[in-house]
């Protein structure tokens, strides 16, 4: 399947000599702080490549200052990239003119912001309908569509409220509804839940998972919270100092970290929740009792614990009838005890 978004060698340099930096191989190779000293420019995004598949929930994770927020703004050209290519449904959006870009923003993608970005002088319904209003959708139709998405995000009854009368979580639901109102192909989330309380955050994460399942849209989600990334992401891109460190599924990051940085990151992840059997299975040894239960390699360790420890026999890891390996007590205990 063709990717919805494909990003090639994307650069964003802030500062006086931005294009010069990107044009020079020597300057490209410098670290961020060296570049700052040499040219006074800040390279926020440095040579990023990735692709997002249709319907995928793609998470970009990094600490503050890693360039992730700049990256997502580059994707919609809220920040103008310095160099590279971004292909959206086959069209390089760095080449399109202002008019076409506006069309894309109006119809194809929309964004949810960390600090909501709601209009304080408008009611919830008018905030949600804002995107339709600037497209020129008539008032009656706007109201209808607003009601639909307000219902979808669970805010029915608050249409006439103003943003400052709502809690943070509810305000972000308005932001979410506003992004959904235009029925875009892709939704961008810029750390949408960082400003919320932990409990509310958990609710909202479940809400996004539910929406993702219901509306099936492609989503690009920015976060600095690893557990959020693991919970939501089909695939996760880890960024550091503007560069991609690793792209992979949650269990790939935990099972095969690309370097010490990622390893350090995932150290405290509850491994049985993330690792799957394929990461801990071993080849069958002579003397293994091979008539135990069969499980798929994508099964999370936690779900296999009972099966393995209960039967007293090794579990066979099987895909399409082929025996890939076995998992016995010691492997399971190794993960649970945090040794693997």
């Amino acid at each position: 399947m063709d990717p919805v978004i494909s990003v090639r060698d994307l650069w964003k340099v802030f500062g006086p000599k931005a294009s010069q930096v990107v044009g020079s191989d020597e300057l490209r190779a410098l670290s961020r702080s060296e570049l700052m000293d040499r040219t006074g420019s800040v390279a926020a995004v440095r040579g990023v490549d990735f692709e997002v598949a249709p319907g995928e929930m793609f998470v970009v994770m990094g600490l503050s200052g890693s360039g992730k927020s700049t990256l997502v703004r580059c994707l919609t050209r809220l920040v103008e990239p310095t160099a590279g290519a971004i292909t959206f449904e086959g069209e390089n959006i760095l080449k399109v003119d202002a008019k076409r870009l506006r069309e894309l923003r109006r119809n194809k993608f929309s964004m949810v912001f960390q600090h909501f970005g709601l209009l304080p002088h408008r009611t919830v319904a008018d905030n949600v309908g804002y995107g339709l209003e600037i497209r020129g959708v008539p008032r009656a139709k706007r109201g209808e569509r607003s009601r639909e998405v307000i219902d979808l995000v669970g805010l029915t009854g608050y249409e006439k409220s103003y943003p400052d009368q709502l809690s943070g979580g509810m305000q972000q639901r308005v932001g979410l509804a506003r992004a959904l109102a235009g029925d875009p192909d892709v939704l961008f989330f810029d750390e949408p839940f960082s400003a919320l309380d932990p409990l509310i955050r958990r609710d909202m994460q479940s809400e996004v998972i539910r929406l993702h399942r219901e509306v099936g849209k492609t989503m690009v989600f920015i976060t600095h919270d690893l557990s959020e990334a693991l919970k939501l992401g089909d695939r996760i891109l880890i960024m550091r100092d503007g560069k991609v460190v690793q792209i992979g599924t949650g269990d790939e990051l935990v099972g095969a970290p690309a370097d010490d940085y990622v390893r350090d990151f995932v150290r405290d992840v509850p491994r049985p929740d993330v690792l799957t059997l394929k990461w801990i299975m071993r080849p069958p040894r002579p003397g293994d009792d091979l008539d135990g239960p069969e499980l798929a390699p994508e099964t999370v360790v936690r779900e296999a614990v009972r099966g393995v420890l209960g039967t007293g026999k090794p579990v066979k890891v099987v895909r399409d009838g082929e025996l890939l390996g076995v998992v016995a007590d010691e492997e399971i205990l190794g993960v649970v005890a945090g040794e693997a």
Partner: protein
Amino acid sequence: MVAVAAPGQPPRLLQHKKALVLGGIVLAWVVLWVALRNVGTLPLGASELTPLHRWINDVNDAVGASRNSSPVFLYFFNEIRLVIDEFVTFVQALIAQPSFGRPVPVVGWLGVVAIAGFVSLAAAGWRIALLAVAGFVFLGLQGLWQESMDTLSLTLSAVVISLLFGIPLGIWAGLSDRAHRVTTPVLDFMQTMPTFVYLAPLTLFFLIGPASATIATLIYAAPPAIRLTAHAIRSVPRTTVEASESLGATRKQTLVKVLLPSARKTIVLGVNQTIMAALSMVTIAALIDAPGLGKTVVKALQTLDVGTAFNAGLAIVVLAIVLDRVTTAATERRGLPRWALFGGLGVTGVCVYLSHTYLWAAEFRTDVEIGSSITRGATAVTEWAQDSLPVLTYGFKDFVTFALINPLQALLAESPWFLVALVVVALSFLVGGLRPAIVSAVCLGLLVATGLWQDAMITLASTLVATIMVMVLGVVVGVWTGRSRRADRVVRPVLDAAQVMPAFVYLVPFLALFSASRFTAIIAAVVFAAPVAIKIIADGVRAVSPAAVEASTALGSSSWQTIAKVQLPMARGALTLAANQGLVYVLSMVVVGGLVGAGALGYDVVAGFSQGQLYGKGLAAGVAIVVLGVMLDRLTRAAARRWTN
């Protein structure tokens, strides 16, 4: 321990040394003053002129002669004057002056009161509307209806023109960084320049009268509208703008649907400040023959008729309160029921019609006129105060005069000019470095060139005394209100009110208490400048991190120790800003002070307005005030930079 203490030592030694050098300079100055007293002080008698002053007079005459022949005048200045004059005259014809062959204005008092009430009702609600109606009726009862309406017409005309230019400019400066960079210094200049200074040059081009008054008011009143509009647009959260852009809004859509509605409240605040500034300036513009209440006050001040000045001053205060309350309340959005809106409109229409048709509703005639009672009462109180309070008031006055003003003035004005110049340049170098020293040297040179050196020194002495008093007040009240929420709740409205009042009004009560003298002018300047300083210091004290204060308290500091060792040192940025602003505000009162016996530059400017042969001297005095202002402003800023880093 040693390693930690070592880097801290050199600056402290340096500071110590600096203080010694400073003391040395002052000591040397005093010694030389004793030796060289009254040598080279460059005095100039009240009616004496220098060649520069005569030359300016000649220029003035030449300009006057070419007013109806030179194309610059015919096609530029005169055109502007005519348009503005027409506009002001039109507004005056509506509400203030007999017009269109009628013995009364188009809309009489009943109509104006009704309109004021209705506008207040729509913009600010019932209570404010009642206040507006009561205020306007009170103006009539004071016997000052026509004067008040003249002042109102001039204010409104200037405000309309200010906003016509100001709001679009502000939007532009809010959207474009380049426009912002260009307008900021211009606005700074317009706002820091003492108001009287541009009155004289304006009369050169636009004659005395309403046009010059309106233009002067424009210059003074437009900056807040421009600034606050730009500020409001700039402070709309970045995310909100991004959200709008990310949804595909055009620039215009984002401006109209996001920026302007979000900025509405602050923009209305800017309109409020513009109105208040305009009212303040319109009264001051009485000096160049602007009609209205200001003229009544000026005339009364010149004859030291405190009662009449008080009555007219009170009218200005009433007008200020009404305008301020209405526009402040207008920042909050409120819906008015439709029936009230249409009902109000109907009643207003009827009132306007009545006041247009019947004399009783047009001319404010009443048997319960209270203006003369107010005048008599104020005069009686003044006489009583001057007769029975001299121990208190004159004791205070004499103390400040002999302990502060006289010594400082003697030192500044009776030293040879080169000695003062040398001391000031040396101090500038010590306090700020090379650049401030150069600026000071240039400014001092200009002061000598204006031919008004001694007057400038006398004004400088008064200014410094006033600034010291402002700072004492500022620190005491500022720390108090900064530390106590309750004090803040009491004091802040008083400060707000004091800042809203036109500068003139301050003079009246102090004139009553202290009669005409330098001291009276100084006190008026202090009262004018203190609110700003108090607010800045209070905000500075409040901005000190609560953690630092808590830590200090936890270590067992007393309140005094916390103030002296934590809050004031951490608020020193605010302290220097307060000193700087205090100076600027005090200087802007110099000319007003000239009306009540401040003498020196203030008197020169005032005399320049009223006597043709002193025009040049007055203009030079205006320039001297600006030069003093620039010098002191740069110096305090440089000192602030050094001190806060």
